[in-house]
């Protein structure tokens, strides 16, 4: 216990004796980790926005006039049993006429003897089945039914949105790797500078019989401490700052408390590892 207290004292002494270097290390880590936080929050928020838009996607199956209503009802029931289908709504010619009027604000069919609008089935899906590949698969299956004249869903939009989502995920991964590496290198550099400054003390400690653990502890602890404080401060600043922003259609989504905890823990471990690598130089 005595040794631990002494080592902690040595760590804080190292920090206090080099306030500018300590502040520089802390602030650069804060910026790096905050950048990651911002990208993470942006990604979660855009994902939530995308999911909301996705939930509005449905497939509309247009039916030939020649198909009897009884067959259409059987077809609706059969489609309702498809895996992933949430609801199938039958739109009659009258319903379609009413919807068109509602949409356009006036009756465009006035003067026509017959209602040319087709009957249709609007199929909505469970969230897990809302992706381009699955919907395309449904489209093919639905086309196999006699009486189907056309099928419509926002295929292009969905494909573009999925492409963007994949790009964002890859960017997040890339940024995560780059920032982790930058945090690690920052900790290594800070630890090397610190160990370099105390090189003479380290050489004397070795002569007195200090082990590697005893000598490295302050530098390793320092690296871990900066990373932990920077990670906590980053989230605190972002949470505080988020209160000043509001967007019309996008809600700002933060990671869960558990995810933030693991993020801080991981940052600490990276700092700890960086401190270890940096202090190894003092044993050369």
């Amino acid at each position, binding site marked *: 216990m*005595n040794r631990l207290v*002494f080592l902690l004292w040595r760590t804080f002494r190292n920090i206090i004796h080099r306030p500018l270097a300590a502040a520089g290390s802390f602030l650069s880590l804060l910026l790096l980790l905050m950048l990651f936080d911002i990208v993470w929050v942006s990604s979660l928020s855009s994902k939530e926005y995308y999911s909301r838009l996705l939930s509005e996607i449905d497939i509309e199956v247009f039916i030939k006039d020649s198909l009897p209503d009884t067959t259409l009802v059987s077809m609706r029931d059969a489609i309702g049993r498809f895996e992933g289908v949430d609801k199938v709504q039958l739109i009659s010619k009258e319903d379609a006429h009413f919807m068109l009027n509602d949409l356009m604000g006036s009756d465009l069919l006035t003067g026509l003897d017959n209602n040319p609008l087709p009957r249709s089935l609007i199929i909505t899906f469970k969230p897990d089945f809302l992706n381009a590949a699955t919907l395309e698969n449904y489209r093919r299956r639905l086309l196999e039914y006699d009486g189907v004249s056309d099928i419509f869903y926002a295929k292009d939009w969905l494909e573009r949105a999925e492409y963007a989502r994949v790009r964002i995920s890859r960017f997040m991964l890339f940024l995560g790797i780059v920032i982790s590496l930058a945090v690690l290198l920052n900790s290594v550099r800070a630890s090397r500078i610190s160990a370099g400054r105390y090189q003479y003390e380290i050489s004397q*400690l070795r*002569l*007195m*019989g200090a082990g590697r653990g005893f000598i490295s502890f302050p530098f390793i602890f320092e690296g871990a401490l900066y990373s932990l404080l920077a990670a906590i401060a980053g989230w605190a600043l972002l949470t505080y700052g988020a209160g000043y922003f509001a967007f019309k259609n996008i809600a700002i989504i933060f990671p869960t408390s558990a995810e933030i905890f693991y993020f801080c823990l991981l940052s600490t471990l990276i700092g700890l590892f960086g401190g270890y690598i940096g202090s190894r130089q003092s044993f050369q």
Partner: protein
Amino acid sequence: MNGREKILELTSVRASNRAGITVFRDLDFGLYAGDTAIIIGQTATGKTTLAELIVGTMKPERGSVKVFGKEIGMGNERQAIEIRRRIGGVGGIFDLIPNLTVSENILYPLILHGESKKERKIKLDQLLGQYNLTGRKKDKAFKLTRGEKVMALLARAVIADQPLLIIDEPLDRLDIATSENIIGLLKRLWAAGHALLILTNGRVGFEIPGSKEYQIKDGRLQ
């Protein structure tokens, strides 16, 4: 041989100094517990290299260096650490840490030994008194005079009751009064049972009963 532990045993050692110059070609040397050896050698003849070989910060190119009966070298770090904790050093490669206070410097070996705060305080107060450093205990080491520095190093070298003391140029650049003071302390340390290995580039100017003098010549001790 004489019933006492052979704390230092260098056999057929060949070693170079940090500049890569071979300073020892076939060195044999031994020191028993409680004995004093004075090694005399001109600059760059290998005195510092000898100290480094003993504490294991340098490895011999050939031969073996046994300290307290155990081989020391870069290979077994754990063993080297245990050995170093039993060696006190003054001068040469052993120095105070300039930005620490005198007390902090002297206490380091006890912290490494894991002694309690209470025990540390008792030993520190006792040594500060013995070595006339009580008034300087809170001063940073860089503020000490040469004589005070040697005193503080001696205090650090014995605080954990280290059985072997390596003393490099103990009286270098000291006035007569301080020199006599340090000579007195060295004699007391010898009398208390510490083995002393004194490294110097000339005659030490004092005698310790039973001490042996060696000259470094042609890479050997004569």
